[in-house]
C-alpha cells in the first residue's frame, strides 16, 4: 500500500502523528498516524471498539493524548482546549448525533456557530444555508430536536457542525442506526460537501459506503492502523472485503 502523503503533496490540513490514547489503564489507540490533505475525504473504517471515536475525540480535544501529536495546518494543537479547537476550524458531528434534545432545530444550528459570535442577520443566513443542504430540517425549525427522527437528527448534527464554518469536518458514523434509504440521503449530502471542496474525515463501520466516497482510507483494528490505501484499493482488497464488507454487500 502506498502512503497517502506522497513526496510532492503539500503539508496535510490535519496531521495525526504517533498518537496513543488511553482511558485510565486501558489503551484504546496505539501509535496511530493519519494525514488528511486539504480538500480530500479520508475514511477510517474498523469494527466496533477499534478506537475510531476515541481518535476523533482526541482530534477535537475531548481526550488528552498519552503520546504523539496533532497538527492542524502545521500548527501543533495537541494541548489546545476543546472549546478553542472549533475556532481553529475543526467541527465534529458526533457518534449518535447528540443534538441538544430540548432545544429547537434552529437553536441547535445557532449553537453550532456559537464561537463565531455572528449578528442575528448573519446567523439567520447561515441557518438558511443548512436548510438548503437539508430541506427537511426547515419544516422542523421550531421543533425541539428530540422530536426529530434519527435521520433528521443526523442531518441536524451535520448541519450544526457546518454552522461552525469548519475547515475540517469530522463525521463519526453518520449512518449509525439509520434505514438504508436515509443513509443514502446522508451520503449524498456528504458527496455534495466533498464536491464543494470541504475537507472531511469520515469514520464508519459501513465500510463499503465510506470507502466508496473516500480519496484515502485507513483500517483501524484494536487501536492500530493495519492498512492504508485509496478508497478504491481498500474496496478491492480481499482482506478488507472479508473482514468489513462481508457477505451480502
Amino acid at each position: 500500500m502506498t502512503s497517502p502523503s506522497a513526496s510532492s503533496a503539500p503539508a496535510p490540513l490535519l496531521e495525526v502523528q504517533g498518537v496513543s490514547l488511553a482511558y485510565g489503564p486501558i489503551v484504546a489507540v496505539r501509535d496511530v498516524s493519519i494525514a488528511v490533505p486539504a480538500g480530500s475525504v479520508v475514511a477510517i473504517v474498523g469494527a466496533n471498539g477499534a478506537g475510531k471515536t476515541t481518535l476523533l475525540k482526541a482530534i477535537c480535544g475531548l481526550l488528552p493524548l498519552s503520546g504523539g501529536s496533532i497538527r492542524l495546518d502545521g500548527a501543533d494543537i495537541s494541548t489546545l482546549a476543546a472549546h478553542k479547537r472549533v475556532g481553529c476550524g475543526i467541527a465534529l458531528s458526533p457518534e449518535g448525533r447528540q443534538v441538544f434534545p430540548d432545544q429547537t432545530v434552529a437553536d441547535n444550528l445557532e449553537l453550532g456557530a456559537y464561537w463565531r459570535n455572528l449578528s442575528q442577520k448573519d446567523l439567520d443566513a447561515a441557518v438558511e444555508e443548512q436548510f438548503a443542504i437539508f430541506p427537511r430540517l426547515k419544516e422542523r425549525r421550531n421543533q425541539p430536536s428530540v422530536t426529530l427522527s434519527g435521520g433528521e437528527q443526523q442531518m441536524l448534527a451535520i448541519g450544526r457542525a457546518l454552522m461552525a464554518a469548519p475547515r475540517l469536518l469530522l463525521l463519526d458514523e453518520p449512518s449509525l442506526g439509520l434505514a438504508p434509504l436515509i443513509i443514502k440521503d446522508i451520503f449524498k449530502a456528504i458527496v455534495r460537501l466533498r464536491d464543494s471542496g470541504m475537507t472531511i474525515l469520515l469514520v464508519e463501520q459501513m465500510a463499503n459506503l465510506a470507502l466508496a466516497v473516500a480519496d484515502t482510507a485507513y483500517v483501524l483494528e484494536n487501536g492500530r492502523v493495519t492498512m492504508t490505501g485509496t478508497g478504491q484499493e481498500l474496496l478491492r482488497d480481499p482482506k478488507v472485503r472479508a473482514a468489513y464488507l462481508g457477505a451480502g454487500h
Partner: protein
Amino acid sequence: MSTLLQLVVSGLAVGGVYALIALSFSITFTTTKTLNFAQGEFVAAGAFLGVTVLYLLAKMSGIAPNFASLPVSASAGVNYPIAVLAVGVVLGVLGLLIFLAAIRPFAGQSGMNWVMSTIGFGIIVQSLGLAIWGPAPVNVPSPLGDDVIRIMGAGIRPQEILVFVVALVLMIGLDQVMRRSRIGKAMRAVAANPQVAALMGINVTAMMIGAYALSSVLAGIGGLLIAPITSASLFLGMGIALKAFSGAIVGGLDNPRGCIFGGFLLGLLESGVALWNAQWREIVIFGLIIAVLAIRPNGLFGARSLDKV
C-alpha cells in the same frame, strides 16, 4: 375569606423564596450535576451581609443605629436596593469561590466528595459569620415599612408582597434569559451535554462557574428578602434551604420551572397547614413529599415525564 387571603399571601411570599432557592439548586444541578450543600449558609450570609450594608448606610447618613434592631428608615429609599445589589456581588464571588474550592477539584470524578466539601465550605462560612456577627438574631426593617396593611379584612405585611413580586420577576427574567438569549442557550447546552457543548466553542468551565455564581446570588437575595419577615439569623438558612430543596425534588430537580412550582407549592402548603395546626406542619409537609416521591420518583415534572414527550 380574610384568613384564606392572608394564608395565600404569606404562602406565596415564603413560597417565592423557596422557589428562588429551589431554582438555585436546579441551576447547579443541571449544569454541573452537583448541588451546593452550603446553600443554607449562603441564604443566611445574604441576610447578614444585607443587614450590615443597611447598618453602614444608616451610619453614614448620621444616625447611630442599633445593629440588632435597625430603624425603619435604614431600609428606606435606595438603601434596600443597594443592599440587594451588594449581596448579589458578594454572593456571586462566594459562588465562584465554592466552585473553585469545593467543586472543581472533584469535577469529573466519581464519588460524592463534593457533598462533603460543600458542607464543609458552608460550615466555614457559618463559623466566620458567627465570629463577625455573633449568634443573636437581628430584626430587619422592610423597605416598604412594617405597618400591616388591611385588604378585605386580611392583615398583610408589605414585605410579603415585595418578596413575591421580586422573586417572581427574578424567576421570569431568568427563565426568559435561559430560553431566548445566546448565553442562556449555551448554558442549557452545557446542562444537556458538556462535551458536545465544548465542541460548539462554549467554555464549559466558565459556564459552570457562572452557574455557581448565579445560584449563590439567588440564595443570598432570597435570604435578604425573607429576613424582614423572619428576622435574620445565622441559623435561618438551614430550614429554608431544606424546604427549598424539598420543593426542587418535588417539582423535579432537572426542571427549572418544576422547581419554581415545587417551591411555591411548599410555601402554600406550609402556610395552609400551619393555619390548621402549627405542630403538624412539618409532619404533614414531609409526609406529602415522601408520598409524592414514592409515586413519582423524579418529581412532578422531572426527566421521566419529559422523556415521554
